């Protein structure tokens, strides 16, 4: 099988080069240099101006866009208020007082004793879980998008399996654009390296597959609730 694969690779590459009328030789150095430079510079292309502005503008835009994408939002002045906000969400929707989360240290450090009846499970999502809690890597103002990456802190299945997805976003992690997330990711993971999964989530799951009518909660969560923590603003 390996031989076949190698043959196929050689053949496809050969076809591409033949049709592009290029070679793989030293005279190809200019093309290679162009590619190297583009990959190393990873320059921004045109970026919409929508998210330009100060923190307050980004926060306001983030909230507007979240709601437009059918997510719900709560703001709390400090992270310490997140446990109550989680409890409130569960109560409002008549959900069991249980939530699953990963090994995120910021979430673990929250004063959960303020909601003593809340049962917290840890690890990857299980089919019976009704609600999960994630800590977002970033919030993106331009479209109200959450950026979450895989790892033991925030397992990917938490974003998709339970019907209710609660996400905490630190106010100082709300960026303007997708490109801002790439800059932050490169700082954390290094150049050219991505986490196994980077999920950009914009509102709950939805489908329009039956007669073009829109319904929320197709296979992923029916509800996405975002708690913005640390904006200094009380609920």
């Amino acid at each position: 099988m390996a031989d076949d694969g190698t043959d196929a690779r050689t053949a496809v590459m050969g076809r591409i080069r033949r049709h592009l009328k290029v070679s793989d030789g030293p005279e190809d150095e200019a093309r290679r240099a162009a590619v190297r430079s583009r990959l190393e510079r990873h320059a921004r292309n045109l970026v919409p101006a929508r998210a330009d502005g100060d923190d307050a503008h980004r926060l306001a835009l983030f909230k507007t866009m979240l709601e437009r994408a059918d997510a719900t939002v709560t703001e709390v002045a400090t992270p310490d208020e997140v446990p109550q906000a989680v409890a409130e969400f569960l109560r409002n929707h008549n959900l069991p007082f249980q939530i699953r989360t990963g090994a995120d240290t910021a979430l673990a450090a929250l004063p959960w004793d303020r909601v003593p009846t809340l049962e917290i499970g840890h690890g990857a999502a299980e089919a019976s879980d009704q609600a999960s809690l994630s800590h977002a890597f970033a919030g993106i103002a331009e479209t109200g998008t959450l950026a979450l990456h895989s790892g033991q802190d925030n397992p990917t299945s938490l974003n998709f399996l339970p019907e209710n997805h609660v996400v905490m976003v630190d106010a100082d992690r709300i960026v303007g654009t997708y490109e801002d997330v790439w800059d932050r990711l490169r700082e954390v993971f290094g150049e050219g390296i991505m986490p196994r999964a980077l999920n950009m989530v914009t509102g709950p799951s939805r489908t329009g597959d039956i007669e073009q009518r829109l319904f929320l909660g197709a296979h992923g969560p029916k509800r996405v609730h975002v708690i913005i923590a640390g904006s200094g603003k009380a609920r």
Partner: protein
Amino acid sequence: MVQSTAHSFKDNAREALGDAQLQRALSNVPKGFIDKRAKARDGLPEFDALRDAGRDIKNHTLAHLDLYLETYERKVAESGGVVHWARTAEEARNAILDICRERGARTVTKGKSMVSEEIGLNDALEAADIEPVETDLGEYIIQLRHETPSHIIAPAVHLSKDQVEESFREAHTELPADRDLTEPVSLLHEARQILRQKYLDADIGITGANFLIAETGTSIIVTNEGNGDLTQTLPKVHIVLATIEKVVPTLEDVSTILRILARSATGQEFSSYTTFSTGPRRADDPDGPEEYHVILLDNGRADVLGTEFQEMLRCIRCGACLNHCPIYHAVGGHAYGWVYSGPIGAVLDPALIGVEEAGSLPNASTFCGRCEEVCPMRIPLPKMMRHWREREFEKHLSPASVRTGLGLWAFMARRPGLYRAATRLAMGALKALSGGRGRLSSVPLAGGWTRYRDLPAPQGKTFQALWRERQHG
């Protein structure tokens, strides 16, 4: 590859026009998609400039495709994934079947993938005693009905709610027969419930890829339902099926294109889920697949490079050209007879399965130009359809009557004096024939037109005569 009936496009189209149910379902297409796209476009002042940027990114990538693929492959390997190259549909199927057999897979869940339709993957899996389960709601519906998708992003757009209900009752026999399925949302809940267990049981998850990123060795899927993510997160093995032209250089480049994808497709600012996957589960990951494979398929794409059709490889499968096409609105996707329908199908299908088979698809176009107007990647679709018509003509594939007619027209067009005299004469004759009613219910040699509607009779002078008057006046 999947069987084509593109050669009988004319008959398919005639049948589609007479199908009342289909016509009702198709009336949802313009209603649903056109306004939403227009709204999304108007909400982003940079929209058209982003289209230019997207076009430039893809042009650059295609000109350096060999090098970006090399980089992509290296980065996938560095993240612990495996790239399998495939020249043909058969090689891609075999690569997937080999992985399935080695893992002893019995059930495979699938995210939506047009390429998997292109290579006829479900039939191949079934023949190997492996159950493929489509998890996108639209794909699941058509799988139950043993149909093919009729639209790139809305595979079941040709069906009514009643047809879906009928299929569910037939397939889900374990559920109570008297359950209420009158509301579409109850159909959704039923599918959700059934498929949930399938995700958990599956041995392997197969998805397509909207993009591949060379910089990081990442594959991207863009979805709204979340089915693609459950498909690729829960099973032990994730197989990505992608074609060579899906590669883009950097995260920044893909961001630019993502900004125009959802807006063009469904009118959303951004799809619910845009997922970047890079390799298998890492050491401290509590979930995610243990293996990550990419099947990198050519299947005719490389041969399009360097030809007048190269620009079609910029396509990002948003479906906007279908949504805005009067021909697609009239006949739906199945009439096209192969995997890709609408204007992009009319340029892609002849390239992938041959002009002999699919040469009649570009002939349906009225060249109204709406497809090019809305294409986020600025693919000159009408121009390419014209190129295919020329190819078809050169290959002597068009009917004798068409060839004779065109030959006659060419003879006249080269002789302006004769042309003017003849058109003047013809106009007079047609006007006389109409007997002052302003329309003609039958015209010699134009039965194909007048059988279905009247031909407006010429009024006044010829275009050329009017033009001359204007120039001098």
